[in-house]
């Protein structure tokens, strides 16, 4: 485990460097003068000149990247034009709600997907299997933003069970448990919108993996040894399926993070995704850059955690 951890951590360095390069590179796709694009047509020439120096636009591209990267490592992501505050500050403030939303969605989706996939595999080619297969097909085909709207319509508008949007009750002075309950009530629908879709993908892959695993030699041998079936399923089969699914779940974090952009917009969730949409609308390029960078790094770390978990489950995996 130790050697694997070290190897895997070392592999982070080139990936993170690459990610920063891409984030920086994409922003240089901006047609025309970046300073003008950032400040807009009404900027004063002095302000423009100042920003050009800040961005190092007088330098060649590699030097500019170096300057920017140095800033990033220093915790300086630049200053947001639209919010008129440091990008890092604004981004970190919005990171928490996104992590809460995406994490809950991923957790729910994983539970849903694993259970549905395992049950379908156990009832392979029976009615349950077909129902799950159909549900999973819907899950991977449904637009998450539409699903969010439907959930609002049914559970918030028609039934009135849950709040329509936001993360907390407005003007709420709830403390302690009731404030947690308040957030949970607001969290349920947006998390579900993402979880049902992520669960579709996970369920589909789990079903395939579980069908394989249930027919595999170790499971058959466990049965041949007379191991109780419950243990065969819950220890041997589930462990093997989980080991295969963990990387997939890590990749689903990518979908959940991306999907959060829609869902946060729909549910007025005060997260990083919505901030990004607002930043794009305001042409606040440094804010976009910072937000994308932070989310991408978060995603890389989630996948690191997934790889470590997989290695803990299956010691044969190597850091490739």
């Amino acid at each position: 485990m130790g050697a694997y951890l070290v190897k895997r951590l070392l592999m982070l360095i080139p990936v993170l460097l690459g990610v920063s390069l891409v984030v920086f590179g994409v922003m240089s796709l901006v047609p025309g003068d970046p300073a003008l694009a950032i400040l807009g047509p009404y900027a004063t020439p002095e302000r423009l000149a100042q920003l050009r120096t800040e961005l190092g636009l007088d330098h060649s591209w590699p030097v500019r990247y170096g300057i920017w990267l140095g800033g990033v490592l220093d915790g300086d992501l630049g200053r947001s034009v639209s919010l008129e505050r440091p990008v890092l500050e604004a981004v970190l403030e919005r990171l928490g709600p996104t992590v809460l939303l995406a994490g809950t969605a991923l957790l729910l989706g994983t539970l849903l997907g694993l259970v549905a996939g395992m049950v379908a595999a156990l009832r392979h080619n029976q009615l349950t299997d077909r129902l799950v297969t159909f549900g999973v097909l819907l899950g991977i085909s449904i637009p998450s933003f539409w699903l969010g709207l439907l959930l609002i319509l049914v559970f918030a508008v028609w039934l009135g069970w849950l709040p329509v949007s936001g993360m907390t009750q407005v003007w709420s002075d709830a403390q302690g448990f009731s404030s947690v309950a308040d957030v949970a009530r607001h969290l349920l629908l947006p998390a579900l919108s993402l979880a049902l879709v992520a669960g579709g993908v996970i369920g589909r892959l789990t079903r395939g993996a579980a069908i394989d695993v249930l027919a595999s030699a170790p499971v058959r041998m466990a049965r041949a040894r007379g191991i109780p079936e419950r243990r065969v399923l819950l220890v041997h089969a589930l462990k093997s399926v989980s080991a295969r699914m963990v990387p997939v779940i890590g990749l689903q974090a990518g979908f959940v993070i991306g999907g959060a952009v829609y869902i946060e917009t729909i549910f007025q969730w005060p997260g990083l995704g919505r901030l990004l949409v607002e930043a794009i609308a305001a042409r606040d390029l440094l804010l976009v850059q910072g937000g994308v960078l932070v989310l991408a790094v978060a995603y890389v770390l989630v996948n690191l955690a997934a790889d470590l978990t997989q290695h803990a489950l299956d010691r044969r995996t190597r850091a490739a």
Partner: protein
Amino acid sequence: MKTLGARLLRHPGAMIGLGVLGLVVVPALAAPWLPLADPTLTMPAQRMLPAGSTGHPLGTDALGRDLLARLIWGARSSITVGVVAALVAALIGSLIGILAGFFGRVTDALLMRGVDVLMAFPYLLLALAIVAALGPGLANAMLAIALANVPFFARAVRGAVLDIRHQDYIDAARLAGHREWWIVIVEVLPNLIPTVLLLMTTTLGWMVLETAGLSFLGLGAQPPDADLGAMLGTGREFLTTYPRVAVLPGLVILVLVVGINLFGDALRDLLDPRLRDRGRRLGTRAGECRDAGRHHDGHPGHDHRHGDHPAHAGRQKAGLSGEGQAGDGRSAGGDCGEPVDDRHPLDQGRRGGSPHDREVSGEGQGDEPPDDAHKGYRAARDARERSNEGGPTTGSAPPLIAAEGLSVLVPSERGAAAAVDRLDLRLQAGERVGMVGESGSGKSLTALALLGFAPPGGRLEGQVELEGTDLLTLDADVLRDLRGRRIAYVPQEPSDALDPLLRVGDQLREAITAHSSEISADADVAVGEESAAELASTEGGSGGRSETGPVRSAVVMAGLGDLGSDKPGAETSKRVETLLNKVGLDGVAGIQRRFPHELSGGQSQRVAIAMALAHEPDLLIADEATTALDVTVQAEILALLERLSRGRDRSLLFVSHDLALVTELCDRVLVLYAGRVVEDAPRERLLDAPAHPYTVALLACSPELGRPQKPLPAIAGQPPSPAEATWGAAAAGCRFAPRCPKAQPVCEQGEPGLDELAPGHRVRCLFPEGSKASDTGDGADSTDRVARADGADEADGAEVTDRRAGIDGDAGNDGSRAHSGRFFNERDSQR
């Protein structure tokens, strides 16, 4: 591609997918010619008209525009954008993939590191960043989605190119002096088309969804253009008042994407060779599987065309890496997900019109249920416990385990084929029996069937009686309790025996505790009997008993409390040590803490044997247990098995393709050919006087120590597959006849019975060989045998009798020689 079209037409999923897709695509394509209102014409006076209004079947939106027209034109926009994005991604991605895959080395390393980095992004985020840089707009959104998908295409295409590059025809083209670019264009590109097509259908649904998503956010299609995503975005404002305006566009997207995904799944079924292979393995070839190509050069007749181990079925490379890597989103879809369901339902009536079935194989019984099964079970058990001294006996003593008319049916193109056909097998307590045959002869299936396991998609027929109780009618949970406790199994691949994810010590403890809280066996049987009838009645065509049973018992188990708990009590730990020491491993040392992949093959096999011995089973089945090992380790394991079985009241069934090995270890040998027992003889008998031509051939191709120059003849031809044996040319007669050097026309007329040649020596041959064959003797006995075969084969008995004259005249020599050999042998043994 022609055949692909035809196959798609016959694929139900593809047809349903096309149908669903057509619901959206056909109107969208026909939009310019449909009598639709102008989708962008705003008429504020007709704002939010309800559905069914004149001229507006679905009503109007907030600006009074016709909703139906906007939906159809919007679908047109979404489809176009999705398809173009898929094409752009495919084009750029393929180019990168081809460059990386074909020109290799530095190009490859650079390009692929870049791809890896892009894949470290959540790709929707990447698309967002690109749109942010390029500015909003449908074309930019499309480009952004396409670019975000490029890495996925690049990686998959590179993989495909690498596969193609290693094909012989590419080398041939190089040798022919063609230039690299010529090879790429002429040889590589055409072979990439299916891959790229597949990737496009897999990602198309996602591209439609995500471009709609960008438009929904206002970053794609701009007003007043009709676009499903944008309609959804603007309709959102009126969600509470006019939900229809937002709900309908989403519904159209859903239908469109469901259609695309259904069709894509079908296409993947048909195009992805890996999945197709897997489907075949799960399905038609399930019973045969593979043997990983390990075999002795000394056995040319043993070609491992089919494998042996049903447990391999369905095992495959985890398909999670390829597409799953690419997709943090939906296109990860089902790369590894969906096994192809081309299992053929097993037809109940196994095969029609073979009147000589039961009669020929001798034993006619089997249909009456084992009356008073539990009493017999108990009685037999008591008897066994009383008389421990009774060594291997051939005659009257009740057998420990007896298979009667045991058939293992596997799915094939034509329905259920018998991979093991009406096999009879009796093992006395303490007896060591070997079972030999080529791969595909059904020996491993038989071994597993003795544990009540049917191959995936297959089922068992006949009886397997453990001291009088038929295992195949037992309740799943009772059967489970017998497995590992009374009958233990050691598989061929040491790595298969152990769960790769659990530590060796934990697995041993698990094997021990599995039966420690033993439910009384007698009670079990009583319970078992009750549900046996139910089990028999529910046993349908799909899935063998062992496949459906566990599910049932899982439900039962769930209510039973923690039977499987593995509290590592001191007693268990001690037992683990003892067991490990018993098989020659140091039980205290680190081996318990290791994972299976940290053990050598020999160590793993010792652990597997230790587990098998955990409950001192009455019968140990070693299924090619030494085959996968090095020769020296093989000898050690063999010695271990011998030590563990000799001088004890434990029976051993040793399954191997290696006749020499079997005769070293076993008292009695069964020779299997194409699912049938062709010879059953005590070891000495078999070595001195093999009677079946197949046995003779097997012996002839065993290398002998000290005679390295001895030529090893091959047995020409291939054994029939279960389907061929059931329906093919050989089905009517002796299955070995097509390969038999001594075959006569009569051999193909009816299958010979398994007749007793001498006490304890049975052979299924009309013209059995003798070891000290002489050419003298009369043909009377051989005619007699033919007549018996005829009698069994009532349908064409008369015809065969007519031809008998021909045998005696034309080719009677062989027959009489064989007969006289046998005659002398019988006399020898009487002396």
